[in-house]
């Protein structure tokens, strides 16, 4: 591709991505509203309320105030000097979402949605959660606004993310265990949708990712775009130029979309890192964009891990937050447009990156975010020292200490069956 073709492609992509989703909630062929009729009026009401209430200056003022004084924004953009030296390639900057209140980017969205739900007159909120970060962030926002909160969580995730269950309970939320399917994020979302059908008149469903039916993928993206807006200003202020790469992990894809979106029209590369679990070849992975096919799950059309009969497969990842067989529809569109590149790293690679960041920078990352770092470990040494990589450090790793310590124990005991 020569330069004029590249510029042409860029401007075409810019015009497409700036206007998405369309009126009916589609991102090209993706997205939409594939839900039971019972929920349709609520989704239409939510869309109208979102478009009417959120542009209001008093809403924006209140949101800004909460984000700065309660969430602690802007989060820093930190130059990872020792990590950069260790890898010997591009300069790595970390967008420190782990320093936001509750320890992950999820709070950006839950504060926004809770504020909206509050203004819509809803007294109750529900949420699904995988790693528990979205559950904690929803429980936090609910406590702040004095709303009742129920969080649906798979039994396997309750087990592996126990500290977050306790946090949610301390915050006054009712954590509902979900044992159907594989007892992970997908099943929690099924159950949350079932519950919402019966409570839809007084309850707002706080979806935590850029997935689900319209208007959620748009709304969650907009609330999370603060990550990219800040990062853009910060990198311009300190370096006087835009970065060359943005890197973020992708489960449903909210932290990645939040970082990417304000940069969609810029000439830089966007890298989404999915969970390859025990390896793509093993079949036990969560690489939805890498290995999935077009389908409809949880209210929107997108890439999905499924069999030839349209039955959804179980995903696998050491990271509960990435352990999901679907992905946000806008990511599917960006993949098809070639605007973002989606890759995957295994559990082992993520663990290695986890330890590396602990040792080089004194930061314990969430296992989700460690996937983005694992891509850096593999690729950054190949990049020129002049290039700049911004990694979304989407969350902190305190919640994962039990998983890490169990893995370490197993390693010491030697191979299974010994």
């Amino acid at each position, binding site marked *: 591709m020569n330069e004029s073709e590249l510029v042409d492609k860029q401007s075409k992509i810019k015009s497409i991505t700036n206007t998405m989703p369309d009126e*009916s909630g589609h991102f090209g062929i993706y997205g*939409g*509203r*594939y*839900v*039971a*009729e*019972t*929920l*349709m*009026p*609520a989704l239409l009401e939510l869309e109208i309320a979102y478009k009417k209430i959120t542009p209001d200056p008093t809403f924006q003022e209140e949101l800004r105030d909460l984000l700065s004084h309660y969430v602690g924004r802007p989060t820093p953009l930190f130059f990872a000097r020792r990590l950069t030296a260790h890898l010997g390639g591009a300069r790595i900057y970390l967008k420190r979402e782990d320093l936001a209140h509750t320890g992950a980017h999820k709070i950006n969205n839950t504060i926004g949605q809770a504020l909206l739900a509050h203004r819509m007159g809803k007294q109750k909120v529900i949420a699904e959660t995988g790693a528990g970060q979205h559950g904690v962030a929803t429980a936090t926002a609910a406590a702040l606004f004095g709303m009742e909160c129920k969080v649906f969580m798979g039994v396997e995730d309750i087990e592996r993310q126990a500290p977050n269950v306790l946090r949610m309970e301390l915050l006054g939320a009712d954590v509902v265990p979900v044992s*159907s*399917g594989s007892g992970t994020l*997908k099943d929690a979302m*099924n159950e949350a*949708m*079932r519950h919402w*059908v*019966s*409570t*839809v*008149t007084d309850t707002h469903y706080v979806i935590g990712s850029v997935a689900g039916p319209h208007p959620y993928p748009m709304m969650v993206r907009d609330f999370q775009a603060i990550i990219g807006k800040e990062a853009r200003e910060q990198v311009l202020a300190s370096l006087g130029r835009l970065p060359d790469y943005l890197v973020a992990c992708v489960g449903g894809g909210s932290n990645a979309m939040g970082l990417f979106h304000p940069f969609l029209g810029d000439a830089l590369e966007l890298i989404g890192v999915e969970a390859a679990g025990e390896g793509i070849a093993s079949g036990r992975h969560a690489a939805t964009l890498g290995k999935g*096919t*077009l*389908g*409809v*799950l*949880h*209210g929107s*059309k997108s890439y*999905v891990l*499924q069999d*030839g*009969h*349209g*039955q*959804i497969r179980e995903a696998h990842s050491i990271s509960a937050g990435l352990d999901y067989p679907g992905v946000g529809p806008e990511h599917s569109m960006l993949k098809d447009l070639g605007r973002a590149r989606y890759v995957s790293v295994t559990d082992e690679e993520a663990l290695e990156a986890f330890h590396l960041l602990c040792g080089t920078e004194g930061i314990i990352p969430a296992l989700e975010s460690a996937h983005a770092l694992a891509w850096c470990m593999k690729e950054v040494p190949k990049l020129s020292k002049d290039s700049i990589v911004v990694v979304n450090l989407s969350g902190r790793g305190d919640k994962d200490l039990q998983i890490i310590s169990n893995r370490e124990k197993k390693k010491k005991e030697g191979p299974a069956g010994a």
Partner: protein
Amino acid sequence: MNRIDLRFKELKDKGEKALVGFVVCGDPSPEKSFELLVAMCEAGLDILELGVPFSDPTADGPVIQRGAARALTGGSNLAAAIDMTRSLRERTNVPIILFSYYNPIFVYGADAFYRNALGAGTDGVLVVDLPFEESEELAGGWKNDDGFALIRLVAPTTPRERMAAIAGNASGFLYLISKAGVTGGGDLDIDGIKDQAAILRSITGTPLCVGFGISTPEIAGTLSPFVDGVVIGSAFEKTIEDYRHHGNLADRLAEQVRQFKNAIK
């Protein structure tokens, strides 16, 4: 006129209401499922709603969720449901509609689905998570003169203007969801259902069937005067679940069909 329209006309002439029975295809096993469906049709079911099992049934309560899981374990899927229709057509003329989530149909392909389902003797489809805003991509290419029905749903939360829009597109019958919730037992607001049925009656002449949570013949009998038919699902699935290891399951289901049918006559 297709089998659904004919059936409602016959029932109207006799002054009867339709008993619509939902059963998951392949529950509890592929072989048993055929035997049960034949027994239910022969016992007086007016319309069979053949459930296509799906891994993530977000509109279903626990009873049908477990039924779908059993069927999936036995290898059931959309193709199997279409094959089942073909086999049933050798034994019965009861109208058969497929009840599915959208993804299995989407993956099968809208055109192939239409061709094969119609060819097998299916009379229509109800897609629980495909609101009318999204349904063009499925039914846009269908020919109207084949009489293959796309059954539309109206919920307790559906506002009046929206009811009119949905009814304007309806074919076969309109499915009135009795409660804001998933399938299966629960308290029904009988007066609310009556009021909504009356509104729908004033909007459309399409037959109206009510379903979700109608767990006993008594409740079915209470509702039937206000509609053209009632849909029973979880009650049948509960019987399959409870008696799936008993030899007389087909007889039990047939008896249950007769009880429901008597209650709504």
